[in-house]
C-alpha cells in the first residue's frame, strides 16, 4: 500500500516525532509507514485522515490497479 504521509507531513513542516505524538504511536511506526515497510490498521489510518482533514483514500491507496 502506498501513502502520501511523508508529503503531507513535509507540507506542514512536521517532524516524524511530532506526527507520531499526534497519532499516539512511536516515531518508528511513522517511519515504517512512510517507507512502505508497514501498513497501518484502519483505526490508525482514520486517525491520520482526521488529523490531515482528508479522506483515507486521499492518503493511502492500493498499489494494485482496481479490478475491471
Amino acid at each position, binding site marked *: 500500500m502506498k501513502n502520501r504521509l511523508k508529503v503531507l507531513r513535509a507540507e506542514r513542516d512536521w517532524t516524524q516525532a511530532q506526527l507520531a505524538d*499526534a497519532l499516539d*504511536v512511536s516515531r*518508528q511506526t511513522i517511519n515504517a509507514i512512510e517507507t512502505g515497510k508497514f501498513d497501518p490498521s484502519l483505526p490508525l489510518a482514520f486517525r491520520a485522515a482526521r488529523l490531515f482533514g482528508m479522506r483515507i483514500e486521499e492518503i493511502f491507496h492500493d498499489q494494485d490497479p482496481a479490478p475491471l
Partner: protein
Amino acid sequence: MNPRKPAENGYQSRIWRNTIRLACWGGAWVAATLLMGFGPKFLWNKALVFTLLAAGLDVAVGVGLILAHKKYIAELDELQRTVFLNALGITVGVALIAGIPISVLNQYDVIPFKSDISLLVILMSLTYVVCVAYGNWRYR
C-alpha cells in the same frame, strides 16, 4: 490537534512508564526466584513452611510479572505489538521444537550434559531478545 505540542500522556511517556513497571516486576520476580532457590539452604535451613511461603511469593510475583507484560504489550502501538507478538510466537515455537528433543536425548543419555529447565529458559530468553532486536531492525 496540534502536533507541535507533545501530549503529556503521549505514547512515549506511557511506554516508558510501562517499561519501568515491567522492569520492576521482572526484578521482583528474579529476587523472589532467588529467595525460593537459595533460601531453603542458606536462610531457613529447609524449614518447610518458609519454603512453601517462598514458593507462593514467587508464583504471586510471577503473576504480577505476567500481568505487567500483558499490559505492556497491550499498550504498544500496532507496529511494536507486531514485533513483540512475532517474537513471542517464535519463542514458544523454539521452546517446543528444541525442548522436546533435548528432553528425549537427555533421557537416553545421548547428550553429554544434564539438561534442566534453566537451559530452556536461557534458550527462550535469547530467542526472544534476538527476535525483538531483529523486528526493531527490520522496521527501523
